[in-house]
């Protein structure tokens, strides 16, 4: 759009907003639906025909007030049972940002759903009931957020109205949760006292809690940084597809298309292609039809190289000075997501970035109990919703980062070759942040101040 009317400028403002992906986690009665309902409702993302439908159904069931959970429970079975079965994605926006919310059920048996929601989240909201404080389920949610390396965690201490809005109650819960989450290596924790039902500190600041000087939930969601300093990340481009027009106009064009998984790439840079180890130099970067000098994650680009070397889907392009190790023996933490178990000795497919290889489960050294983080040695198998350590041998070498370094090139799926079922979600390397990492992540002086 080339004209410069006021409306066009407003449009430009709108499209300059960023996108935040976040996930919610909470036990059954912590008020998660109410919080989600309020965020949607107060950001005017619930439109009148949706609200009317909810009112109509609520009334037909004899309810006095509209049941906001009906806004989010989309399947017949969910409405019949009154519980959320599966991850659902919700969308809302403010003037500052667009939000994609992975709404995940709180039941213990749906750990896989929280793992699914957390896998793409920049932030996780963990809800607790102020009356109950930190319970097993809270620790489970914190552990999943830590395991999936979600960069920001919000502890929403809900139902503050039922504890007389007392600062002491909030402070104790916040302190206990923060200590636990820090131990797991969660890099950033923000605690917010709220009442989703009464609307305190969700969208509007609460006059009932003058002692709280921090942001509301929405304010925090609007301002939390979504991208990190990419210059220090290892640059990674998994090759998705080779673009070769072979037309009169482009007889020699050969571009390596993919979405940058981490870091930045620049024209002129020397690169190495894995697993072959061949090297070349970047002569051009096409950003969806536009030539650029530099590109970064998560842009989808096409790389052009100086040499005509053999590169195909599944290869990984990295800066020559920064190559990940290649290995056929992977040790990882997995969350088992299928209904059929994962056994020692099982033959599987492993999908890592754009590459799928044959693999065999050599060992399952331990199963993790999220409640107390205890390890149960040699369980022999993992069943649905289990989290455990596995050792996998692949038929071909993979250039695998540790999940701690790169969520995208350190993650993989295990797939059943017989019917294509996704069996497990894998994260290479250590399960939780090590003490050294933790020290590096700890903020300088910003402690708690009540």
């Amino acid at each position, binding site marked *: *759009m080339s004209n410069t*009317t006021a409306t*066009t400028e407003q*449009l430009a403002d709108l*499209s300059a*907003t*960023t996108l935040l992906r976040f996930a919610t986690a909470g036990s059954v009665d912590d008020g998660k639906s109410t919080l989600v309902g309020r965020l949607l409702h107060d950001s005017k993302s619930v*439109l*009148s*025909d*949706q609200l009317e439908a909810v009112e109509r*159904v609520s009334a037909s069931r004899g309810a006095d007030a509209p049941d906001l959970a009906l806004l*989010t429970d*989309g*399947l017949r079975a969910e409405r019949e049972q009154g519980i959320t079965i*599966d*991850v*659902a*994605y919700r*969308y809302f*926006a403010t003037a500052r940002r667009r939000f994609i919310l992975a709404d995940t059920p709180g039941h213990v048996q749906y750990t896989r759903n929280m793992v*699914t929601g957390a*896998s793409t989240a920049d932030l996780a909201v963990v809800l607790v009931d102020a009356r109950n404080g930190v319970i097993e389920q809270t620790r489970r949610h914190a552990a999943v957020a830590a395991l999936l390396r979600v960069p920001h965690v919000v502890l929403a201490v809900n139902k503050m109205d039922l504890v007389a809005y007392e600062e002491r109650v909030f402070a104790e819960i916040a302190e206990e949760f923060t200590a636990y989450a820090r131990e797991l290596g969660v890099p950033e924790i*923000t*605690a917010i006292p709220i009442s989703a039902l009464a609307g305190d500190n969700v969208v509007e600041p609460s006059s009932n809690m003058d002692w709280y*000087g921090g*942001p509301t939930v929405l304010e925090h969601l*609007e*301002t939390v940084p*979504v*991208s*990190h*300093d*990419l210059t220090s990340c290892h640059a990674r481009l998994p090759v*998705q*597809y080779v*673009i070769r027009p072979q037309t009169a106009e*482009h007889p020699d*064009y050969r571009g390596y*298309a*993919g*979405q940058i998984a981490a870091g930045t790439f620049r024209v002129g840079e020397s690169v190495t292609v894995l697993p072959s180890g061949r090297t070349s130099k970047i002569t051009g970067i096409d950003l*969806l*039809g536009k030539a650029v000098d530099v590109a970064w*994650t*998560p*842009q*989808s680009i096409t790389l052009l190289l100086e040499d005509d070397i053999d590169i195909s889907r599944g290869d990984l392009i990295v800066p020559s000075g920064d190559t990940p190790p290649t290995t056929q023996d992977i040790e990882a933490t997995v969350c088992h997501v299928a209904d059929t178990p994962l056994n020692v000795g099982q033959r599987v497919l492993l*999908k890592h970035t*754009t590459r799928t290889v044959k693999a065999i489960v050599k060992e399952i050294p331990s199963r993790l109990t999220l409640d107390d983080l205890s390890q149960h040695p040699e369980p022999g198998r993992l069943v649905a919703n289990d989290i455990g350590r596995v050792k996998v041998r692949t038929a071909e070498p993979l250039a695998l980062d540790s999940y701690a370094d790169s*969520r995208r090139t350190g993650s*993989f*799926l295990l797939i059943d070759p017989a019917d*294509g079922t*996704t069996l497990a*979600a894998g994260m290479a390397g250590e399960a939780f942040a090590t003490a050294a990492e933790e020290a590096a992540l700890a*903020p300088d002086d910003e402690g*708690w*101040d*009540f």
Partner: protein
Amino acid sequence: MTTVAAVTGEGTDSPYALSHLDALESEAVHIFREVAGEFERPVILFSGGKDSIVMLHLALKAFAPAAVPFSLLHVDTGHNFPEVIEYRDRAVAEHGLRLHVASVQEYIDAGKLRERPDGTRNPLQTVPLTEKIQSERFDAVFGGGRRDEEKARAKERVFSLRDEFSQWDPRRQRPELWQLYNGRHAPGEHVRVFPLSNWTELDVWQYIAREDIELPQIYFAHEREVFKRSGMWLTAGEWGGPKDDERVETRLIRYRTVGDMSCTGAVDSDATTLDAVIAEIAASRLTERGATRADDKLSEAAMEDRKREGYF
């Protein structure tokens, strides 16, 4: 007094932050390229509506300067808006694409489908669509469905496995983790792919404006002969409206969605430009489907039930 630990910086400060449209575009392109890399016979469902037009635009960008490696499939209800069919044929010719058509009218003429008493042909699309997928052996079928459209759609995966009868079983979906899409399927099965899953109606319009994408004129306000049925303005035409007791009038309207004429309602509007349309949608208190689709009101689970049968 503060109770916040380690919150730093503004969300948009980083020079590396992408705008939400760039982020959605990049994600959709990634999905198109995954399908091109992993499937044998993909096809894009193309109705000539705004979502499928945006899909085609994204596919063109994803593979430029090479051609789009997919063909198009239109499920023709026989009750289409002429402007939309004209747009479809022009797009196919301009980009040198191959168009497959699954025709509801042919099925009715051959006695394989029966016209419904309410005259809507929307639910009748499922059989021609699924039979075409089987006969052409398509293994990946792109749809323009968005999760913000409807609550059953909010549960849909980006890669959605369908059995040999094209059925969707919401309780047996593959969890979708990171950006690792699992497209494995047995012979006869296929995968429905939704690259616009995470887009909202407003995102689609803003993207159309940013990319300066041409649309059929029925999306913009124009005078048209319409009549009211079940609270919606329907275009008068040979498809079966108006009936004797329904009165035709000329109104200034536009369409928010494009579908079968018998069940796609128009909205009163004076929005003749993209900016005006965006302003109108941003202020609207009705969802896209709530405002314009009769068939979703049939029951609380109408969309879920149709999707289970193989609808897109």
